[in-house]
């Protein structure tokens, strides 16, 4: 038991001797030794956790007023918007929260890529993060189906149909997913059930992500391990206050969207009730899934597209071994720190291409960006690690700080 918990009152001590929650919190949130040189890019992990909590909290209240039935779903959402007290606020916070969640998580992932946070000993930490990303995508996709607008219905049709590309068992699998022979009421009801379930699975994986983090400890912008107590500071108050400030900034952006442009990131088409007899002009997913949609559509063959799309994420699981460089941080990798930004650009271009009709120049640009995405991960990363001349690493975290 830690010294400080003995300073606590008798009640806390009584509980702590039987269930050490207080010394656990003291150890993991208060004392947890954190590198003292973390920059603002390290804010995004905790921000993602807070957005997850906001999503679950608002989602619970939405579920109290939502009706998962093809005849009532659209109307029940409108009822939330009009007749439930502050229903419009809860729904807009939830709707834009999905965008915020992905924005924050994508930045978090790119931070990991730049500073080599996926390298030993953090491979499992990285895997758990990728599993969270996959769960988020599934949850977001099913959540988007719930308002039962045109884009909900046709998005669900397109995405579930991807599974029909699987040879032999494809068609039966799609029928099984739908619970029928088309996207219909059984599909909506199971999506609602799963949309409620998966966030709690995400919470569980986030816990594992944190356990792995606190075991391997935080990486830092220099990518070198802390050598002594001089290199670390306790998590509280230093990073609790820094994360609080970061949260304030995020909330300003988030709430500006909620109150002044609540539908800016959505498709107008989804305010048209679902109509199975009328296909919309264009079927596009929400912005955060567009890069993957572009990869899917860059292949003329359906199965090939599906395989490539899933590969684009699964390939990230082997990144710790594809990247052969011993140096973690891009700060000391003169070439990688440049090609990293080309990779970021390729991802943004993929997002743009995903929103275009898959034809002409947009299709070509999408294909080039797809090719570059895989070239970067499969070819550039292994080669760079072998041939890149890295800059000398500093002695310790406090060394370069002291010099300045």
């Amino acid at each position, binding site marked *: 038991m830690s010294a400080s918990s003995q300073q606590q009152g008798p009640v806390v001590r009584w509980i702590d001797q039987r269930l050490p929650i207080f010394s656990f919190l003291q150890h993991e949130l208060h004392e947890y030794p954190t590198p003292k040189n973390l920059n603002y890019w390290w804010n995004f992990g905790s921000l993602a956790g807070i957005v997850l909590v906001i999503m679950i909290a608002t989602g619970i209240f939405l579920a109290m007023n939502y009706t998962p039935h093809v005849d009532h779903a659209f109307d029940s959402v409108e009822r939330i918007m009009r007749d439930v007290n502050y229903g419009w606020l809860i729904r807009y916070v939830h709707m834009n929260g999905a965008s915020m969640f992905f924005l924050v998580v994508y930045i978090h992932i790119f931070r990991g890529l730049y500073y080599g946070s996926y390298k030993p000993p953090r491979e499992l930490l990285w895997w758990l993060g990728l599993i969270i990303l996959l769960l988020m995508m599934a949850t977001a996709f099913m959540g988007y189906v719930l308002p039962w607008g045109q884009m909900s219905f046709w998005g669900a049709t397109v995405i579930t149909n991807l599974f029909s590309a699987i040879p032999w068992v494809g068609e039966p699998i799609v029928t099984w997913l739908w619970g029928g022979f088309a996207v219909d009421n059984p599909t909506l009801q199971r999506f609602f059930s799963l949309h409620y379930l998966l966030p709690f699975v995400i919470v569980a994986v986030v816990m594992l992500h944190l356990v792995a983090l606190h075991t391997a400890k935080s990486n830092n912008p220099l990518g070198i391990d802390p050598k002594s107590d001089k290199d670390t*500071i306790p998590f509280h108050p*230093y990073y609790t*206050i820094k994360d609080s400030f970061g949260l304030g900034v995020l909330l300003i952006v988030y709430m500006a969207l909620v109150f002044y442009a609540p539908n800016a990131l959505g498709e107008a088409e989804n305010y048209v009730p679902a109509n199975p007899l009328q296909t919309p002009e264009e079927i596009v997913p929400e912005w955060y899934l567009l890069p993957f949609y572009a990869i899917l559509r860059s292949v003329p063959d359906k199965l090939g597209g599906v395989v490539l799309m899933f590969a684009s994420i699964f390939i990230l699981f082997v990144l710790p071994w594809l990247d052969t460089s011993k140096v973690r941080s891009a700060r000391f990798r003169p070439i990688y720190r440049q090609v990293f930004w080309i990779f970021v650009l390729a991802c*943004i271009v993929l997002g743009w291409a995903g929103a275009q009709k898959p034809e002409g120049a947009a299709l070509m640009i999408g294909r080039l960006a797809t090719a570059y995405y895989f070239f970067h991960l499969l070819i550039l990363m292994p080669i760079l690690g072998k041939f890149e001349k890295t800059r000398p690493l500093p002695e310790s975290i406090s060394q370069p700080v002291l010099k300045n």
Partner: protein
Amino acid sequence: MTIFKFTAAAAVTALLAFTAAASEAPVPPAQSWSFSGPFGTYDRAALQRGFQVYKEVCAGCHSLRHVYYRDLAALGYNEDEIKAIAASVEVQDGPNDQGEMFTRPGRPYDRFKSPFPNDNAARAANNGALPPDLSVITKARPHGHDYLYALMTGYKEPPADMKMTEGMQYNTAYAGNQIAMVPPLSEGSIEYKDGTKATVPQMARDVTVFLAWTAEPEMEERKRLGYKVLLFLLVLTGVLYAAMRRVWSKVH
């Protein structure tokens, strides 16, 4: 760092192109609306005129299923006026204790009465075309407000070389330029209660304001609450920044 700058510039260009290439219908010319901007509100007089246009013109074919008569209080009508407006329609209710459906005058808690009992009846009466429900129409179209105004004022003679389908109208704002809806507004087709001259652009503007409200009845409250929330967050974030600087001043 040059690659970084290049990347940033390219990213901004890509995002701009992304926002520009959203939909197929021609982008309607931007109008100025009283409800635009962070402090915009609905013009009550325009709302009431727009309601009159809806009631006397659009309501013949278009439903407003998500709006209740009681909601009209937001337009500035008092309780008696709303009761009178609701009572002007006969709604079906029931079954009564004999098990039979009956009609009664509308009440404030009723939804706006739809012109047709179901979609099939609507199609049958409209040459096979389904007049969409207008409750959220301004949110359901890209650039919804400008689009609606452009559509209402966009009826023209078709170009000589254009082959029009039987029963279709030429409209500059509609995707494909052929729309099933006959021109709904014509000069002086209604007589405004407040004496405003009922020109086509005037009626188009007013009904757009009304439908902006039906789509986003919470807008004024949302914006009012929004600047309080943002002001609070700005102050809070400032305080947190100062606290962070102070805590971190001990770290070297």
